[in-house]
Each structure stands twice: as C-alpha cells, then as structure tokens.
C-alpha cells in the first residue's frame, strides 16, 4: 500500500445498515437487557420511598403514621407491588453478574463462579433473615 492510498472511513459504495429503533426486540437477551435498563426507574423509586420513610421516622410518630397511611392507598400498593417485583429481578440479575466483575483467586486458583454467586445469595438470605427476625420480634 503506497503512502497515498489510505482507507477512507466513509466509502460511498460500502453498505451501512442503520440500527433499527426496535433492535432490542431482535433477541431475548437484548430484550432482557433493555428491561433491566428501563426498570431501574423502579429501583430509584424504591430508594426514594426508603428516604421518605427515614424522613417520616425522623419527624416523629404522627408523621410516620401518616406515611404508613399513604403507603396503604391503592396507588402505592400497586406501585410497590410492581417495584417489589422489579427490585427482585434486579437483585437476582445483579447477583448472577457478580462473578463477571469480581474474580477471586485462592492459592493461585480461580474460585468458581457459582461459589461467588452462592456467597452473594447466602449473604442476602442471612441479612434478610436477620431483618425479618428483628421486625417480626418487634411486632
């Protein structure tokens, strides 16, 4: 190739297919991915409600009772049910992704992925159990 002949980035005769707006419906993995991205709104909503709960707690018993009453309305019950499902979906997909980002090596050998995933689930169970114990005992 001589110094003059260079590949150009925009060759008039090359065919470039445009990515369709519906690319995420082309296969299930893409759809799952977009579902994860879009439903992160519900995770944010869950975080906002938690902050709101903390604020109500800080403002005293009356404010907290009002907060609980608000949560009991059909609107919030519906929203929270949807949010619960998607937060669960995010937790599970997140735990399953963990071994991709965290590679643990013990004595020079890589710890198998299922162990990393399993430890995450175990921690989840233990923490949920502890929280459940405190809440139920209090009630």
């Amino acid at each position: 190739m001589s110094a003059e002949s260079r590949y150009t980035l925009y060759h008039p005769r090359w065919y470039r297919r445009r990515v369709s707006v519906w690319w995420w419906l082309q296969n299930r993995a893409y759809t799952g991915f977009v579902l994860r991205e879009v439903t992160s709104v519900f995770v944010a909503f869950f975080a906002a409600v938690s902050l709101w709960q903390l604020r109500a707690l800080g403002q005293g018993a009356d404010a907290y009772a009002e907060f609980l009453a608000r949560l009991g309305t059909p609107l919030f019950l519906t929203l929270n049910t949807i949010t619960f499902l998607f937060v669960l979906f995010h937790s599970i997909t997140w735990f399953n992704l963990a071994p991709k980002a965290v590679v643990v090596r013990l004595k020079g050998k890589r710890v198998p992925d299922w162990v990393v995933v399993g430890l995450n689930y175990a921690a989840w169970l233990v923490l949920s159990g502890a929280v459940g114990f405190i809440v139920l005992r209090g009630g």
Partner: protein
Amino acid sequence: MQPTVALRVARYRPEQESEPTFQTYEVPFRKDWVVLDALNYVKDKLDGSLSFRWSCRMGVCGSCGMKVNGSPKLTCAAFLSDSMPGPIRVEPMDYFPVVRDLVVDITDFMRKLKKVKPWIIREHERPLAEGEYRQTPDELDTYKQFSMCINCMLCYSACPIYGLEPSFIGPAAIALAQRYNMDSRDEAARERLEILSEHDGIWQCTFVGECTKVCPKHVDPAGAIQRYKLTGAAHWLKTFLLPGAAR
C-alpha cells in the same frame, strides 16, 4: 438421492445494487459439513461471483465470522445439521460496513485494537544477556483466557452498543488490553487505563453480555470489561481520596 438444504445468502454487489438482496442456493446436505463448506460449494460449483472471507476452516484464523440464522458465528464451526431443515440464512456481520456480499470492512476494529497497545511494554527493557522474562504457570493462568482471542469480531457484531455508538472501543480490544495488563511481564497498565477510561472506553459498556455468549474462544470480553470498570473505579477513588498518591 443426496438430500439438499437451501442456503439464503445475502448478496451485495455495489456496482449493481444499492442495497443487499438475498439469493438462494440449493446445496447438498452432508452431516459433516459446516456453513463454510456449503459456501465453498456454492463458490466452486454454482456461483463463482459470491465473495466471502475464510482461511483456516478450523476456528483459528478468525476470518469466517458471519451471521448464521441471525446469530454471529464462525461459519467453520456452524454445522448445517444444527440448522436443519433450513433454509439457512447467511449474512455479513452486523455493524460493519459491507464491502461486498459477506465481506465487511474491518478497518475500524484494526484501528481500535492498535489504540489499546496490545503488546508487552516495559519501563526498562532488560538486556538480552539477562535472559528471558520468566513466568510461573499461575501467572500465565491469570491472563491466558483473554489471550485466546482470534480477532474474529463476532463480539462486535453481537454488541448493540457498538451498533448504536460506533466510537465504542469494543469488547475484543478491551479484553486484549486486559490480557496485557494482567501479564506479569507488562508494565503499562496505567497507560492503558488512561486510554480505556476515555469517553469511548469501558464506560460505554452497559453490560448486555452478548459478546461473551458469541465468543467462539470463551474469552469472556464482558467479564474483562466489568473487571476493568472495577479497576478504573478503584483508581479514581484512590486519586480522589489521596491526590498525588496514585501517580
């Protein structure tokens, strides 16, 4: 009678047409044939004008990547019997400009690959007299998986982010950067982190994960990128908390 299978092949002849079309060829079905064998049959016996790339026909060279029935695959490893009764759709890889028929232009990938400096860089080269750089099996094991990449670009073709943001440096280039970062003989991890932390680097990846699924060599580029994000974030935190210390 020899059974046959229909091969629906994408054709693009820029001197004749402005958009790709499909052409169907009836090829013999043999249990031991892969899509590449069928394409070669077409080229030899039916239509010499069909263009496609191939070389080793054994999953080593990485030249024959195409879309088979919609998924990116090495055609030398895609058995006809897996797609029976057919027809089998063969198209060029997605997101690369099509030069002709099944041949795509790979200049963009080549440019990106070079950008991550996929070679061993030493701060001070050891004199020859001191001998080779030694490595233990464990040290080899830390990066070996990423070194299996054959630059077939199937991961780019599977990555919708690359399709939507063509400036994204992409799965294979990042996995190969990681291959050198983790090599005990290399000393340029910082230099590469700088390149890969740019706008078009690791942070473009939103972890679709398809690159790992289509990789014929089990390189796991998605894993490489997520681990790299962790490294990048840790480095940022270090420079944020202790300015100057991480230099």
